[in-house]
């Protein structure tokens, strides 16, 4: 049947089983919104206050649910407002499909009103960006975009559609998701593959080599990254290997939750702001098996001094990560869950001699005690952070117990990520408590999204570590720039309690830890969202 391009977009979203989208309308994308109006019973559209919020929300939705997030925006500024959100999703391998509409094809390249080359701008921060100029290409492109976003190493994909393509009518036929690779460009790609000579899948011999390396090492260590979180079943396999064979594990920030924090074989987060135990393990191990990590500079520090005594074996789904930052002795290109499963089978009867011991409990600073209180009162909550000191305190103090429990902008470090991502997470997993841990600096960046939270009844508790400053930058000014604090003091910012109330949400202030505890437990009991403004000392450092 022949239908409009706009309707093809809506139908393609239904093919994918999409029931929630985040976005912001505009004139170029107006026809798509008209089709979504007709499908409003099947697809819920969440209108944010700003496109950046929508981008982070779709990202947060994807991270919390494991499904592909969808975000819509109009041409020009609508599209460019997405950029920080796209980059955050890209750096943390989060599957999101962004659909933007552009001006009429005849006006492309003429600097028309609200025209921008968004496919060009987004090229380095997406797995692929498409410009669709006619309705006939739409279905194939959108199907391909979803396949690309979710398969392999997940990541964002952008589809830009010209105004005329949303109006034009083209032949469309419903195609179940599993048939998608049989048509259009996907079909060509698949056929291209069938002519190829190389064998698919992970080579068993490579896994055997890894097992042999393990058997011959004295101080083996597994480092789990975001790949273990993204790969279905990988965390279970990792836990089985560590517990069953006595191999200690550490994680990167993105890998938190792969191992339960209280597990006897887990030694915490490694890297610049990691735990002393984890960094000691990395320093002393003689074999480092890195699974789904990309050896970010925040993890390795100076590359030359990273894991100085260790041979490094790298397991990653992305071939381009191998030997990118760290030269490895052995590597396996494959899905983390699959490879760990194969390794587990290969290790029958092996048990590593214990070599790591946990050091005693660390003394917590005041902000960390707030995090511990959150953990005590809501151990199963989804924790969403922004970026800064509060993020690092949360990551190293909260006891994460499952993959997907922590949503944080680890790679890109985008301040303002938190509230948007929390909205997406809450929209995706309605029954879990979502706690947004933030700082006053980060919160100010996207706080208009409180309107979104209120409008859709997405009950998020925002815990603001309010030290009236940009703590992490300020701390660097204290340590390395002679205490010349410049542009890092945020005094005179809004009263967050009144701000929350202005949006019709509950706003509370906690001057001390016991006040915080009673406020949080009351909020959790009520099930209603809001903010708790926790006054903290600006000289607390991480």
């Amino acid at each position, binding site marked *: 049947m022949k239908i409009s391009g706009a309707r093809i977009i809506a139908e393609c979203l239904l093919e994918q089983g999409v029931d929630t989208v985040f976005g912001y309308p505009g004139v170029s994308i107006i026809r798509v919104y008209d089709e979504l109006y007709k499908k409003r019973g099947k697809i819920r559209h969440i209108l944010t206050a700003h496109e950046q919020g929508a981008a982070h929300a779709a990202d947060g939705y994807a991270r919390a649910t494991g499904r592909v997030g969808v975000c819509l925006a109009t041409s020009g500024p609508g599209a460019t407002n997405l950029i920080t959100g796209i980059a955050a999703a890209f750096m943390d391998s989060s599957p999101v499909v962004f659909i933007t509409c552009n001006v009429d094809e005849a006006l492309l390249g003429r600097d028309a009103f609200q025209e921008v080359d968004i*496919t*060009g701008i987004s*090229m*380095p921060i997406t*797995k*692929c960006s498409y*410009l669709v100029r006619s309705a006939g290409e739409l279905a194939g492109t959108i199907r391909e975009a979803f*396949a*690309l976003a979710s*398969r*392999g*190493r997940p990541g964002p994909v952008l589809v830009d559609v010209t105004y005329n393509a949303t109006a034009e009518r083209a032949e469309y036929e419903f195609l179940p998701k599993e048939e998608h*690779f049989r048509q259009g460009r*996907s079909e060509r*790609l*698949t056929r*291209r*593959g*069938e*002519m*190829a*000579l*190389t*064998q*698919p*899948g992970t080579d068993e011999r490579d896994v055997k080599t890894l097992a042999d390396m393990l058997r011959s090492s004295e101080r083996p260590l597994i480092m789990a990254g975001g790949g273990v979180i993204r790969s279905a079943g990988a965390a279970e396999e990792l836990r089985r290997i560590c517990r069953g064979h006595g191999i200690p594990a550490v994680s990167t920030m993105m890998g938190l939750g792969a191992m339960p924090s209280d597990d006897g074989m887990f030694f915490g987060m490694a890297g610049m702001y990691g735990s002393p135990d984890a960094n000691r393990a990395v320093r002393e191990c003689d074999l480092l098996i890195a699974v789904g990590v990309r050896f970010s500079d925040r993890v390795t520090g100076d590359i030359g001094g990273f894991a100085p005594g260790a041979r490094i074996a790298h397991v990653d*789904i*992305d*071939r*381009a990560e*191998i*030997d*990118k930052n760290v030269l490895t002795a052995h590597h396996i*290109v*494959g*899905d983390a869950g699959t490879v760990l499963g194969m390794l587990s089978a290969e290790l029958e009867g092996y048990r590593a001699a214990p070599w790591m011991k946990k050091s005693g409990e660390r003394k917590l600073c005041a902000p960390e005690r707030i995090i511990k209180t959150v953990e005590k009162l809501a151990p199963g909550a989804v924790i969403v952070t922004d970026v800064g000191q509060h993020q690092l305190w949360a990551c190293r103090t909260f006891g994460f117990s499952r993959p997907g429990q922590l949503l944080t902008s680890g790679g890109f470090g985008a301040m303002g990520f938190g509230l948007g991502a929390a909205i997406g997470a809450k929209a995706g997993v309605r029954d879990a408590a979502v706690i947004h841990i933030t700082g006053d600096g980060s919160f100010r960046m996207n706080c208009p999204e409180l309107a979104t939270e209120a409008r859709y009844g997405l009950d998020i508790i925002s815990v603001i570590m309010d030290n009236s400053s940009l703590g992490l930058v300020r701390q660097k000014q204290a340590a390395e720039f002679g205490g010349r604090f410049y542009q890092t003091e945020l005094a005179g910012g809004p009263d967050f309690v009144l701000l929350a109330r202005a949006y019709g949400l509950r706003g509370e202030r906690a001057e001390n830890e016991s006040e915080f505890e009673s406020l949080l437990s009351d909020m959790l009991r009520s099930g209603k969202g809001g903010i708790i403004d926790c006054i903290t000392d600006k000289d607390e450092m991480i």
Partner: protein
Amino acid sequence: MSSSAKMTRQTLSVLVENSAGVLSQVTRLFSRKGYNIESLAVGTTDDARVSRITVILQGTDRMAEQIAAQLNKLMPVISVQILTGKKAIYREFVMLKVKADGKDARDEIMQIVNVFRAAVVDISRSSLMIAVTGDEEKTEAFIRLMSDFGLIEIARTGLIAMERGDGSIRDLSKDRAEYELGKSI
């Protein structure tokens, strides 16, 4: 310094789908890493929907492997081949316009043209246009000799290259499992 850390001339052959923006996607990867492209040649293949890009750069083996892995992740890239030294044949096509004011100069240029098996493709009262094909050594030598007469202008295609033997760059294409798993994309 080990041999893999030595800067040498690296040649990458890239087979790409002929889609909009593909050239900028490919070249962007080089500029982002700060690799300087020495030469770049693009042309279609026997299949009009497929183009072949030849990129030459100075770099280590590791740099070439990294860039090949990154190139493989791009959707429109069909296959990538790193060509090394003697295992491949390299050719370049050069057109140059050179001053030839009198009969003596013209005769001398013609002699050199014959030695190099180049061709005079246009002639005027005071200049010659010459086309020459060869590997880099030959074209460079020819250009050096011609510059003695005074070069008016020069246009080079950049090197293109192909591996010796029966193999095809298509043998390296991403397989279906990789599409299914998205390993390379």
